[in-house]
């Protein structure tokens, strides 16, 4: 007779699970509240969600670096702590955007907030593990919640967007699963540190490269879909257009941060093993992504689509930093996203302010450039803030994203990729054109239609969020140095 297994609570190290448990329990509380009393106002849910996010934030801050827990499945290292903090901060910026002055369909459902919290828990699971199963489960939890959130914005475009995203997501789930099956077949384990150990023993076996090639191409395809990299980026602009503006801004940051963390873990491992062509493939993808997306952004007639392509291009920029696989390069990824997050969410929030029920300027687009023509006369403050975000995205010196770009280029030069830095510089120059185009429209053109329209959705919470984003964008010069050293410390502590 077998003895029952005894598991002591200390060995589980439940504190490593605490942040996700907070988010999941919060989602369940919201659902139960709705069951008890379905007449509650949405402001309550927004406040409750914010509160849960605060507790979650505290729980992440309370974690120790380099710990394992729950049968060694959870891995708390610097990367996971930083990315969780970024995910939660972005969510805190996102949630108040639901308190618009006009009523929108999706926010009247408490399910929206519950799903949102489940999604955050999914992302947190994804970044705090090096176990392929848990990464897969987290990825799918988050993605499935996100498809539903997109579809909840009750418009025909948003259903189309949800279906497109869903199809692509299901395909990439298939690729991910097959890739991990090949890895499992090669090494007999699905924990990345064991995988690395076995692979390094088998590196000089004949024809093992073919199998490794298969695994890494499958996984790279899966994550290229999630990160909207060049050959697989086609879904992104449509999905961003169909989703509501704040959700589009959110999608351009948070899922990508999570996917980047997993990419760092998996492809960093390959590059560390000395498999040079993985680096080359990533570089090709990165350069292709930033160049092509920039060229596509030039010809867009809609500001939201332009911003979608621009965020694809920024993702390509960051992917190049991934290929460097130095501590500096990895720091650059997180620094860039930490800065890009505020600016991009701010820009999308500006689109959200001017959201209308009907398309007033064009049959096809919600936010054509004409809508913003002469904004300086209608809404001077708004025009200035929007211009600020555009300048920051273009990488004009004192504003936030500039520091990210400089840091990425510096990392590239320091690892001997001078040509990469030059390509990045050229791309930033191209990108400046379409950001400036919007500024020209706002400042130099006459308004197309009568004036009343642009303030439409404004409310106090939205102003607060946009104000915060503006402060973060302008004041980057004051906090950039401590931010870099914090991120650098965390990343070198976790050994990347």
């Amino acid at each position, binding site marked *: 007779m077998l003895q029952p297994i005894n598991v002591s609570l200390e060995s589980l190290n439940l504190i490593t699970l605490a942040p996700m448990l907070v988010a999941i329990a919060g989602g369940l509380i919201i659902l139960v509240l709705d069951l008890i009393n379905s007449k509650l106002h949405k402001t309550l849910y927004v406040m409750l969600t914010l509160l849960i996010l605060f507790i979650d934030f505290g729980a992440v801050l309370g974690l120790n670096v380099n710990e394992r827990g729950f049968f060694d499945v959870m891995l708390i290292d610097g990367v996971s702590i930083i990315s969780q903090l970024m995910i939660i901060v972005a969510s805190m910026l996102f949630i108040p955007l639901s308190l618009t002055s006009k009523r929108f369909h999706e926010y009247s459902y408490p399910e929206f907030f519950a799903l949102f919290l489940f999604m955050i828990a999914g992302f947190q699971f994804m970044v705090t593990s090096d176990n*392929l*199963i848990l990464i*897969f*489960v987290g990825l*799918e939890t988050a993605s*499935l919640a996100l*498809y*539903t959130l997109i*579809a909840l914005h009750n418009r*025909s*475009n948003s*259903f*189309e*967007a*949800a*279906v497109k995203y*869903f*199809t692509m997501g*299901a*395909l990439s*789930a*298939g690729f991910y*699963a*097959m890739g*991990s*099956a090949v890895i*499992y*077949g090669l090494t*007999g*384990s*699905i924990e990345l540190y064991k995988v690395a150990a076995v692979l390094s023993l088998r590196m000089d076996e004949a024809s093992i490269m073919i199998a490794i090639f298969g695994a890494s191409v499958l996984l790279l395809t899966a994550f290229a879909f999630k990160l909207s990299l060049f050959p697989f980026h086609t879904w992104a*602009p*449509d999905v961003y*257009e*169909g989703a509501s503006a704040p959700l589009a801004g959110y999608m351009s940051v948070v899922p990508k941060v999570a996917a980047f963390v997993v990419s760092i873990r998996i492809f960093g491992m390959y590059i560390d093993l000395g498999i040079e062509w993985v680096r080359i493939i990533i570089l090709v993808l990165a350069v292709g992504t930033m160049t092509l997306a920039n060229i596509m952004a030039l010809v*867009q*007639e809609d500001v939201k*689509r332009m911003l979608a392509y621009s965020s694809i291009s920024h993702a390509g920029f960051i992917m190049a930093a991934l290929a460097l696989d130095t501590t500096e390069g990895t720091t650059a990824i997180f620094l860039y996203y930490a800065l890009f997050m505020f600016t991009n969410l701010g820009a999308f929030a500006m689109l959200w302010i001017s959201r209308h029920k009907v398309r007033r300027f064009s049959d096809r687009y919600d936010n054509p450039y004409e809508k913003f023509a002469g904004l300086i006369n209608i809404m001077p403050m708004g025009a200035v803030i929007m211009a600020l975000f555009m300048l920051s995205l273009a990488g004009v010196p004192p504003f936030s994203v500039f520091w990210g770009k400089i840091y990425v280029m510096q990392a590239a030069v320091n690892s001997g990729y001078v040509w990469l830095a030059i390509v990045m510089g050229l791309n930033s120059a191209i990108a400046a054109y379409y950001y400036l185009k919007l500024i020209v429209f706002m400042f130099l053109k006459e308004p197309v239609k009568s004036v009343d329209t642009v303030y439409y959705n404004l409310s106090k919470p939205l102003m607060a969020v946009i104000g915060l984003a503006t402060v973060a964008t302008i004041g980057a010069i004051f906090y950039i140095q401590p931010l870099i050293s914090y991120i650098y410390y965390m990343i070198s502590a976790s050994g990347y």
Partner: protein
Amino acid sequence: MIGLTHYLVVSALIFSIGLIGVLRRRNLLMLFFATEVMLNAVNIAFAAISHFYNDLTGQMFAFFIIAIAASEVAVGLGILIVLYKRYGSLDLDELESMKG
């Protein structure tokens, strides 16, 4: 004697069939079926490799894939029903309204 290789070949074949289904089908429902086929092909591979190594991890992964595939179907079909009620069609070419 049927060994691991045969299972892996079957799995790869089914996976390719699913992939081609995703690429070629224009009907969304069929497309979802194709992605399910892909996931189930992976399950075969995991079960076979797991048996080869005498290690249960692969079967655990297969379990999770089954559960995730089910929730994927639930969410996806939910969205599809709404879409069908709106458009009266599930054909990708007819649905396309956002381009460029």
